[in-house]
């Protein structure tokens, strides 16, 4: 009887209420396939530089930021060629680094495989974070991941919407500008950023630099499980080269232009599985020709064109509750054409097909094992395998010890292989000399690296410690050597003066660590040191590529009252040689100070920063005779 009223009640159905959503399941958004491997499980030491640190460092380009990574040496042979090297001051061009920008390798094809221009062409303001994988990593990235991988992740277009304007000006003719516009929504978002960087480089050096950059990124989400990223960019660098008073190396302005296109499509196949297809293409052109004063009618020319193409398919999935795998296939092609560098009208180049696989196994909460291998068929170097094994033991939830061993290699650059630089008299057409000669039979450099590293995160003390002890043995090191025949046949223009050769082997042992401490909400301190020792098997090379016995950096980030932000960077290193010329650079100290004031505006925010580099006076960075003069500049940044 009590239920009799039901039929006639007819209560209107209420709208869906928030409370039902409170309990309602929503699809898993951050599926395992979207999550990145945490640092404690990573197969090697990783340093992350986040956006806040990038901004607070005041860095004008990425190389400067690498001062915040333990083990890195940062300096340029000139002010126009900023360079960073992990542990060993290997070369002046960054050819043994792997630099990835959103997964795209940015090294240059035509010369030695330089990464320094690629590093310069990313504006720090566009970067979300930089993950530096300290140590060799060919097992994951193949040849060229020889001494560290600098993985730059630019901001998602949705995270950089609106307008941004930045202007810098100061001493050493620092004149930087930047403009960014971002638009769109979560289905399709876009960013276009344009910028210029200019300065007069080091004191005493002919190394003025004028860089123009235009970069574009689109992030599209046609379906909830699909992410498509497209990027494109064009850069133009005019920089000074040569030495005052050296007629053999006259001062002149070089021009470098490049463009790239990249696409990356990711599909979430399941909660644990992801498929990724990526492709990129890049072209570059370098012009550097000048009359050779000692012999009228002879031109010095290093001009070239290069192009690269890369394709990759990658699949990741869980193979069990404690086992994850990443595997894939890829193909790349590189070409360069330069009559000046290769003495042939046709392009030189190579292609490489690759397969890679990586397993992460977590049998217990305490252990993570990472094993991987990269197998490639290189048209010049032949086939190679780069394996890796790393064991991570989490002896407490806050502390991890890693043990690992891996083999890496660097496939030789086109210049090292095909280089044939000749100088002709014009208009007679007579050969007057030859300089570099490559060797088609040159062997790839190989590296075997062993490490024991430690990662501690003591939250109750607000303290983090990252320590790595390493032993890195390089064999078949490639370098330019004087051709013994050249002196024996002095005056014979057909004998090349310098040869690329596998010159020897060395071992570098050392210990690096970084301590991070945030004693209060307004203070962050970072202290890092690297102690290393390099021994060549051939004592004749004993003073080549010698790292400093000790290098230290202190970074102090402090928020002060009145929305003032202070950064103090102090670094010192012992004496070292950057290049094979065995030129000993004296020990140095450098202090940088940045003070910034930020404020809110009606429709955005603003920051005015004052930066002094080399506060303690002029310092020798990468080459004797050239000084980083004390440099001060103001930066105004407006963001909407």
């Amino acid at each position, binding site marked *: 009887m009590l239920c009799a009223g039901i039929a006639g009640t007819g*209560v209107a159905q209420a709208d869906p209420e928030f*409370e039902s959503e409170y309990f309602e399941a929503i699809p898993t958004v951050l599926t395992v396939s979207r999550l990145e491997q945490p640092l404690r499980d990573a197969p090697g030491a990783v340093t992350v530089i986040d956006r806040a640190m990038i901004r607070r460092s005041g860095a004008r380009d990425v190389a400067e930021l690498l001062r915040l990574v333990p083990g890195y040496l940062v300096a340029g042979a000139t002010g126009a060629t900023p360079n960073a090297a992990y542990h060993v001051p290997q070369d002046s061009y960054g050819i043994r680094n792997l630099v990835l920008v959103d997964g795209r390798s940015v090294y240059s094809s035509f010369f030695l495989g330089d990464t320094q221009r690629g590093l310069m062409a990313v504006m720090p303001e566009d970067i979300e974070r930089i993950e530096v994988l300290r140590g060799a990593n060919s097992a994951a990235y193949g040849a060229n991941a020889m001494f560290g991988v600098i993985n730059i992740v630019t901001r998602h277009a949705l995270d950089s919407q609106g307008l941004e304007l930045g202007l810098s000006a100061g001493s050493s003719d620092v004149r930087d500008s930047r403009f960014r516009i971002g638009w769109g929504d*979560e289905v399709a978002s876009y960013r276009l950023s344009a910028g210029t960087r200019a300065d007069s480089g080091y004191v005493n050096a002919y190394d003025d630099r004028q860089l123009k950059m235009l970069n574009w990124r689109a992030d599209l989400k046609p379906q909830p499980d699909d992410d498509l990223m497209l990027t494109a960019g064009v850069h133009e660098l005019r920089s000074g080269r040569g030495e005052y008073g050296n007629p053999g190396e006259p001062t002149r302005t070089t021009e470098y232009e490049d463009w790239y296109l990249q696409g990356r499509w990711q599909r979430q196949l399941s909660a644990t599985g992801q498929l990724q297809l990526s492709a990129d293409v890049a072209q570059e052109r370098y012009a550097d020709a000048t009359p050779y004063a000692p012999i009228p009618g002879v031109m010095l020319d290093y001009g070239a064109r290069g192009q690269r193409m890369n394709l990759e398919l990658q699949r990741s999935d869980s193979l069990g509750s404690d086992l994850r795998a990443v595997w894939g296939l890829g193909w790349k092609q590189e070409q360069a054409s330069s009559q000046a560098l290769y003495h042939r009208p046709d392009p030189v180049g190579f292609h490489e097909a690759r397969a890679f696989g990586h397993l992460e196994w977590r049998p217990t909460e305490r252990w993570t094992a990472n094993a991987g291998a990269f197998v490639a068929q290189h048209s010049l170097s032949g086939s190679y395998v780069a394996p890796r094994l790393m064991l991570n033991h989490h002896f407490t939830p806050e502390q991890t010890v890693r043990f690992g061993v891996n083999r890496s290699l660097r496939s030789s650059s086109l210049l090292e292989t095909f280089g044939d630089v000749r100088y002709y008299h014009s208009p007679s057409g007579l050969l007057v000399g030859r300089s570099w000669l490559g060797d088609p039979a040159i062997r790839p450099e190989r590296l075997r690296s062993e490490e024991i590293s430690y990662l501690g995160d003591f939250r109750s003390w607000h303290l983090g410690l990252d320590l790595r002890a390493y032993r890195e043995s390089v064999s078949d090191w490639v370098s330019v050597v004087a051709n013994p025949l050249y002196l024996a046949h002095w005056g014979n223009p057909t004998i090349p003066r310098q040869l690329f050769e596998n010159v020897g082997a060395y071992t570098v042992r050392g210990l690096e660590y970084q301590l991070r401490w945030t004693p209060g*909400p307004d203070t962050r301190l970072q202290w890092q040191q690297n102690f290393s020792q390099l021994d060549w098997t051939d004592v004749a090379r004993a003073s080549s590529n010698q790292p400093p016995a000790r290098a230290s950096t202190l970074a102090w980030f402090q928020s002060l009252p009145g929305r003032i932000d202070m950064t103090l960077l102090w670094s010192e290193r012992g004496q070292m040689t950057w290049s094979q010329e065995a030129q000993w650079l004296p020990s140095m100290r450098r202090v940088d100070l940045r003070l910034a004031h930020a404020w809110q505006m009606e429709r955005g925010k603003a920051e005015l920063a004052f930066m002094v580099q080399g506060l303690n006076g002029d310092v020798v960075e990468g080459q004797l005779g050239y000084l980083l003069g004390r440099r001060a500049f103001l930066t105004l940044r407006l963001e909407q």
Partner: protein
Amino acid sequence: MAGACSARLASADAAEPEVWLALSDHGGAGAEAARLLQDLVERDGRLSPAWRVGTWAELPANPEVSPQLLVTFGAAAFRVGIERALVTPVLGRAPMLAALVSQASYLDLAPKSALRSSAVWLDQPPERYAELLRQALPEHRRVGVLFGPDSVVWRSALARALAARGQTLLEATLASDERALYPALRSLLDEADVLLALPDKQVYSPANVPNILLAAYRRRVPLVSYSAAHARAGAVLALHTTPQDVARQVAAVLRQVLTGRGLPPPRLADEGSIAVNEQVARSLGLTFPSSQVLARTIHLREAEP
């Protein structure tokens, strides 16, 4: 359906105090909370009310005796309850307790009536969120909150609770303009160490949640939420109110009313539960004590299996 209704009514007896449990629908959290409530009261044994359980469509339209307590589960049931009470004097005399409602929904609906009503809100007190953040994420001191029309009432209480623990509130308030969500979120993520989600149907709508989770993860900013569903979807932590928590609190009110002490004023959730998404936490390099330990440290009843 009528059978279910009759079965529930079998225990009704004129001598027993009658308690009505009005559901928004038959499934979901409301039905679960109502069932848990009955179990709790029956296990306790001190009271043995006669239950009438069902949706409003199943409950008597014109009862002869007014119930001693009318508990609605969910905002829809509460809204219909008010409508019924206003047109049915017998029901209008009964004290009404709104359970499984947010404070915002309750305050939105309750002023429309001069009825005796109170509530057990789903919302957790701001101090509890602040304490959870301090315990679980002591390094994440700048707490970003995106307030919307429903959640903005918590602003000053939360700011005080955070300040008392050495944390800072960074806030953005969303006006009615939907498009303002992402710009506000972006600027919060620029500054905040952690993003705290408070119940707000405009900000944390099912359409917005996936995008907010992705945006926060891209910036490596952990999201701490009020919803266990968010923790499953990708928030690192949730301090949420379960149907069981609601049932316990309603049982206490029920005892108070049935023992003649009257209807207490509305209260925030007395209890809560912690959900941890270990995979996301691990990926962000965060390690927490277990949800049970966290619950204990912020003085929540230990989660029961």
